[in-house]
């Protein structure tokens, strides 16, 4: 099924996850069954005869590049394909304070504003002009070009135009191939963004920095800074809020860790395979066992075993009493999770750690392996091994109608969501619903406590959702809410021949 290596920086494009990792977007069964399917190599994908707007790779590709401090981004397509990218300008401004950027500058986001004429005669010339104008206005240290369905189908030579501009302007001009129709898995966009970064920005190491650790993340609060001080390490967050310079030298780090393999799989693997920076070989630190395992592995990789021993001992001592008291409060309560892949596994682990019973999960997609093929990185398997099976583990491809149907029948004590728009469907049924945006929030011993406190608080303060339930608007038909949630799931297709 797999190539020996999924990372090929000579190629302009990285393959989408369906092809590269055999990832799927439809499955019903339990978590253990899914893990088992993967182990036996008989994982099949399922399509749907009804579907709703999913989201595409473009915004995730932009997510990986637009928040680089000294970058400019050009969306090559109709103006709508850059529609939601202003959100990154907002994020960059409001979140800078949590990441040491005191005066965050305006993000520079362009659209080539492709019109009908361009689809007939091609948009190369317009793209070439936009690159030069963007350069003149912004003077960035890198320009990224994100492609769109339209530019992809009409076959514009984005690579050629970028290369020419790069030679002329003397800064990297990086094409990122992320046409929406290429992948049903929107996280393929992260890979596309990171592929461009690994190809064009990261440079071979000049000198190794033995205290520098790459952290592939979004824009979560700087928790690692504090932890790393105690371990005599320094955090190199990539790629949001990093500078081009900082990314160039990420090859000099001693290790790469990531907050979520769904996000960072490709970049971490590229750093390991192409630049010799080892990727941590265990799942992220959610829940006691994984926290212990993760910090020990980090200690081993960075030669900080003693510091890690002390660190873990202090953390254990400091947080265990409160973890136990929260567990007592939450024990036996039921929960449901909806999230992207790996972070969803983390949330399920956290819930179990806190004594809650997950009644199921609607997870957007499933990666049977990551780019670094390793059993110990299988975050779903790890959760199942530590905490036991999770029933009704549904791969839902962010299909809201299935989630609404399931929540209506399951009615858990709490809904934990990771992506925007999903908590609404808990709230509509009067279910206390919690979304934590900060991806670092639940990590380590401290994270168990922080998440636990928020869960307790959310369940206790349910007046709003109970009232909303009484007055809510329900577009879903009575018929649908009474059907099997997987009514429209079917059309099996083997991912290998997809």
């Amino acid at each position, binding site marked *: 099924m797999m190539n020996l290596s999924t990372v090929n920086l000579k190629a302009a494009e990285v393959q989408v996850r369906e092809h590269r990792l055999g990832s799927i977007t439809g499955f019903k069964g339990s978590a253990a069954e899914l893990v088992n399917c993967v182990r036996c190599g008989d994982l099949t994908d399922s399509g749907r*005869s*009804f*579907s*709703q*707007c*999913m*989201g*595409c*790779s*473009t*915004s995730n590709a932009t997510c990986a590049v637009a928040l680089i401090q000294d970058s400019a981004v050009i969306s090559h*397509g*109709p*103006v*709508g*394909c*850059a*529609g*939601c990218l*202003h959100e990154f*300008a*907002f994020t960059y*401004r409001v979140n800078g304070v949590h990441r040491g950027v005191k005066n965050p*500058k*305006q993000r*520079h*986001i*362009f659209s080539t*504003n*492709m*019109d*009908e*004429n*361009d*689809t007939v005669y091609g948009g190369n010339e*317009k793209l070439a*002009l*936009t690159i030069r*104008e*963007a350069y003149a*206005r912004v003077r960035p240290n890198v320009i990224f070009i994100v492609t769109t*369905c339209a530019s992809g*189908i009409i076959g514009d030579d984005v690579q050629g135009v970028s290369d020419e501009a790069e030679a002329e302007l003397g800064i990297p001009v990086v094409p990122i191939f992320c*046409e*929406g*129709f*290429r992948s*049903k898995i*929107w996280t393929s966009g992260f890979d596309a963004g990171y592929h461009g970064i690994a190809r064009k920005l990261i440079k071979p190491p000049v000198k190794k920095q033995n205290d520098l650790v790459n952290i592939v993340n979004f824009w979560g609060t700087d928790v690692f800074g504090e932890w790393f001080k105690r371990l005599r390490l320094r955090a190199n967050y990539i790629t949001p809020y990093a500078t081009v310079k900082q990314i160039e030298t990420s090859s000099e780090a001693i290790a790469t860790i990531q907050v979520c393999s769904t996000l960072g799989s490709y970049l971490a693997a590229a750093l390991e395979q192409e630049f010799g920076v080892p990727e941590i070989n265990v799942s992220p630190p959610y829940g006691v066992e994984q926290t212990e395992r993760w910090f020990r592995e980090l200690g081993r990789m960075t030669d900080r075993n003693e510091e890690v021993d002390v660190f873990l001992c202090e953390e254990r001592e400091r947080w265990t009493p409160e973890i136990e008291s929260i567990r007592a409060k939450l024990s036996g309560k039921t929960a449901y999770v909806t999230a992207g892949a790996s972070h969803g596994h983390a949330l399920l682990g956290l819930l179990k750690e806190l004594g809650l019973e997950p009644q199921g999960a609607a997870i957007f997609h499933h990666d049977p392996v990551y780019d670094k093929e390793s059993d110990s990185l299988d975050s779903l398997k790890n959760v199942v091994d530590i905490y036991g099976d999770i029933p009704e583990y549904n791969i839902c491809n*962010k299909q*809201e*109608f299935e989630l609404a149907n399931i929540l209506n029948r399951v009615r858990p004590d709490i809904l934990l969501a990771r992506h925007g*728009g999903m908590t609404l469907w808990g709230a509509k049924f009067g279910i206390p619903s919690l979304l934590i945006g900060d991806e670092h929030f639940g990590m380590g011993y401290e994270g168990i406590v922080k998440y636990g406190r928020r869960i307790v608080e959310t369940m206790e303060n349910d007046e709003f959702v109970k009232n909303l339930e009484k007055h809510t*608007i*329900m*577009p*879903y*038909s009575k*018929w*649908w809410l009474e059907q099997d949630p997987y009514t429209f799931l079917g059309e099996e297709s083997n991912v290998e021949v997809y």
Partner: protein
Amino acid sequence: MSKFIEQQRFMCAIGGMQTVVAIPNAVPILHSGPGCGNMVTGFFERASGYAGGSTAPCTNFSETEVVFGGEARLESIIRNTYKVLDTELQVVLTGCTSAIVGDDAGQVAKRFAEEGKPVVYVDSPGFKCNNFAAHDLIINAIIDQYVDRFAYKNTEKDSNLVNLFATVPFQDPFWKGNLEEMKRVLEGIGLRVNILFGPYSNGVEEWRSIPTAGFNIVVSPWYGLAVAEHLAEKYEQPFFHFPYLPIGGNETTRFLRAVASYAAGHGAELREDELELFIKREEIAFYEEIDSLATFLLEFRYGLPGFVHVLHEASYVVGICKFLLHETGIVPKEQFVTDGVPEEYHDSIRAEVARISDKKEIPVFFEPDAGLAQARIYDSSYDGRGLIIGSGWDKQVAKDKNYDFLSAGPPTPYRLVLTTRYAGYKGGLRLIEDIYDRALDTYN
């Protein structure tokens, strides 16, 4: 050839899905790539409505559909939409992918229409036009494919009933409130009004009564005109055109008198005394506020905005400038029309801008590339305290220039708008509140 854009202030054609979202119980069905719906909702924010965003059915074009076509998939998605969602009107919108590979989505929709379903099809690939123009295309498609079929037949024209086309829902963040206020003032002078969008309308029922209206009102420099022209041809309805958003006392009264005069000339029965009484009452209430505010406007020694740059669609640029200059004394400097208005309307908009003041010339730039508009603001300099009324993108400029800032156009992540209106008498007062509230809030 269209030019590239930095910091877009509008969407592509498929952004018109919000026009559908704004009709109660209507469902947009996208025959498009997987990301279009989210791009639209992400641009407008908090804009899912009844069945937009992640609720909207979508064929989610993949490689398979690009290679083999997606008509079969569309057929299945539409068929199952009827099972899964409660809906009174469905509008199938095509995206770039479907248009480029040459799917005949119209035929698919037509099969359902032949089964009696209230389904409409619109060709709306992103590269075709922007969402302002698509708004008109969609309304006309609904008129031709839905209203025509489901209209109340054999009903005589009602000369006092009007259809109002005044705002592009969601693109105008104040669409709900504006429609409510315009309905209120038009009813105040004795008309009945179909506003067609939002919770203050009567949903598809209103759409079915479109042909019975005596005439139509377009409040906009350009969009809406294609609809009014279409209705003129189709149902022989004349239309009255007011080329900008009426804000505050002067302009709302001017608007109402002009409508009343037009209505009288087109068979409506309005009572002169009712009109005068309504205008008088509204003006008294409006100017009572301005009168008692004047001292503050004239005397507040610590500084209030004295001049303004507006970056917005043309309707707002003209409406806001007329209002602020005459009703608050804030002087318009360079103005920026950022909605990509077609060139054929530039002259009439310029002429309207020229009528803002008979004493001063107000420079206006048609600049959908708002990055360039901002560059002009950075380069300008005036005495006194400045105000920028624009989209969220302009917050940074206001900060850098040390100007006051009112976020009033999309995309606007820094502001929450529910039913606030800027149109009409009440809208004018609200705009004053918002501007000076933000100015006062800078004093700690």
